[in-house]
């Protein structure tokens, strides 16, 4: 266990150093490698360990304090050894209303643990998670950041039972089986694990609009009569003829900035239409 160690044994350090070099090579400036390096440390220790902090600090020539300050800012970096599986139940508003609260309560009662706590056998860390960009599949559960869509307390509990029994579980949209926390952390450090081609391209909710359009024969401009195959040619022709300014007069694309800086990065004020980014 690296838990109480403040540095890695030589063989581990050497292996991680090789990974670190690959990570550093992706960025023009070394410090950009810090987030993936922290994911890498989690793939070794299952959390951001003291040894891991020391490792990142050494690789990037930063103080341990500055590495810690970054690590504690982000919710995916764990301060304590994580379970093999993070079971996250979305309890942001939309999912909560659709049943996420009931699912979380059910799992918490079943496992006898609360938010950010781990079962005694080290299998499951339970979390309330924020909106995971899958609201059209609410209520949503994520296990090691793989999607389990349209959950009920019963389906969520069944999946959790399998995890406790050491059986593989399959997400709705993701790899064939959920990898361990450490394995997934290695992917998040930017190392491919060979599972990209597993699972569907899109779930049912992602396709409802497309299916409706197909059913009704709704086509996009330029493909109305021509049908799909002719689309690009039609498009190319349109493009070739489109050298004149084509936006309507007064279109926002035509507006001039007041000053270059002002118009760019403060879209809110310069467009006068929007109150906030989101």
């Amino acid at each position, binding site marked *: 266990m690296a838990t109480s160690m403040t540095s890695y044994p030589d063989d581990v350090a050497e292996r991680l150093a090789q990974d670190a070099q690959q990570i550093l090579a992706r960025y023009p400036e070394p410090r950009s490698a810090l987030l993936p390096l922290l994911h890498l440390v989690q793939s070794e220790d299952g959390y951001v360990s003291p040894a891991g902090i020391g490792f990142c600090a050494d690789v990037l020539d930063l103080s341990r304090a500055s590495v810690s300050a970054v690590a504690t800012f982000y919710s995916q970096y764990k301060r304590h050894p994580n379970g093999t599986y993070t079971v996250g139940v979305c309890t*942001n508003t939309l999912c909560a*209303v659709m049943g996420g609260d009931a699912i979380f309560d059910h799992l918490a009662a079943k496992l006898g643990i609360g938010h950010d706590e781990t079962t005694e056998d080290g299998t499951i860390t339970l979390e309330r998670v924020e909106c995971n960009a899958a609201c*059209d599949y609410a209520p949503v559960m994520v296990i090691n950041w793989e999607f389990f869509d349209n959950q009920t*307390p019963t389906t969520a509990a069944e999946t959790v039972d399998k995890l406790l029994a050491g059986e593989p579980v399959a997400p709705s949209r993701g790899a064939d089986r959920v990898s361990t926390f450490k394995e997934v952390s290695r992917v*998040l450090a930017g190392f491919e694990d060979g599972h990209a081609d597993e699972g569907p*391209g899109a779930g049912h909710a992602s396709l409802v609009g497309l299916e409706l359009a197909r059913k009704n024969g709704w086509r996009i401009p330029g493909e109305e009569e021509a049908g799909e195959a002719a689309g690009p040619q039609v498009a190319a022709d349109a493009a070739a003829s489109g050298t004149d300014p084509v936006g309507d007069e007064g279109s926002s694309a035509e507006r001039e900035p007041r000053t270059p800086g002002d118009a760019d990065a403060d879209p809110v004020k310069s467009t006068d239409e929007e109150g906030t980014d989101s």
Partner: protein
Amino acid sequence: MSTLAPVLSDLWDAPQSWKLDTYVSRNGYDGLRKAMETDPAELITMVKDSGLRGRGGAGFPTGLKWSFLPKPDGGPRYLVVNADESEPGTCKDIPLMMANPHSLIEGVAITSVAIGCHHAFIYLRGEVVHVYRRLLAAVREAKEAGYLGSDVLGTGYDLEVTVHAGAGAYICGEETALLDSLEGRRGQPRLKPPFPAVAGLYARPTVVNNVESIASVPGIVSRGADWFASMGTEKSKGHGLFSLSGHVARPGQYEAPLGITFRELLDMAGGVRDGHELKFWTPGGSSTPILTAEHLDVVLDYESVGAAGSMLATRALQVFDETTSVVRCVSRWIDFYQHESCGKCTPCREGTFWLKQILQRLEAGEGSESDIDLLLDVAGNIEGRSFCALGDAAATPVKSAIKYFRDEFEQGLHTPAWELFPYEANAAFTGVSS
């Protein structure tokens, strides 16, 4: 009547839709070929003429943003794609990248050529591992096929693309916080000016754009600016993904020209779930003021939603029926903003904390006489006084909900929300008690 316009989503039902072969078999990367033969300035003009406005929230004209980069000085210029998608309700970029990552990669390549960037970044939120796998694989495939890497399509142009995973922080969606995070720091917003166009990543000229904005670029280049501009309304051009969630019969992604109405979309989604009626909805995520049933016919473009007192933003249409407690919803949204406040400025850090306390009291039916005014007062002190738009966003649901449903907040002085609106009745499932 408006119909749907599946442009970006058109490929999503193809077998192995995420693979390069699939994308190329549907004329994928034709836009890049064309872009490589086009003057970069002409590409920027094309995107300006198309009327494309940023799909990440604020709706700023994309081509105009690109044109703000200072003249090349021989040093690096960067494109950073904002793939942090974390605004509650927003769920369009993640399915897009899972089903068709190459539409984004092609957009990245074209945009890079247009702005003179040789190293682009995609900053993906860390909580979607399968999407990260798909993006890493797509970049690898595109590189192997010569669409990225050194000597793109034999033109001598070099383009590196790094897909970077975040680590869980909503604020990293704010473009300057994102840049700090990408530089390996805590994700806290920067003071503007200087704006990213002038001093962005590593203090170099940088364009930050949303996933859907960039994925819309190949279509504009291959089909033409006027093709894009033929969809939408006068000032809100083109197609956009509308994401319906919550109490609707068929939640999901509906890609349509901007300017479709909420009523039309709701009809397409089979209406509010059986036996229920619309109570309130968000046009563009939790940071946009809620609207009600009186706004069913609002035209979903930037101007009209603005005129109705809200914002189009990310087109995240979260639908709540009459069984839902608005106090509960606002309370939970504020939990989110309080949790995600980066702590840099006092109005937001302290204000969200206070809002949370008050809303929890009201949800529990234990509010005091002055609480509603206090809510408005605290919200008013956050709004306009915060360092970044997250603070303003936190004030938004509070103010808009009190505007339309003040009586429900008043009931929070004596009756818990779960008695007024039993929470079991909201759920998508029945018969399981927790």
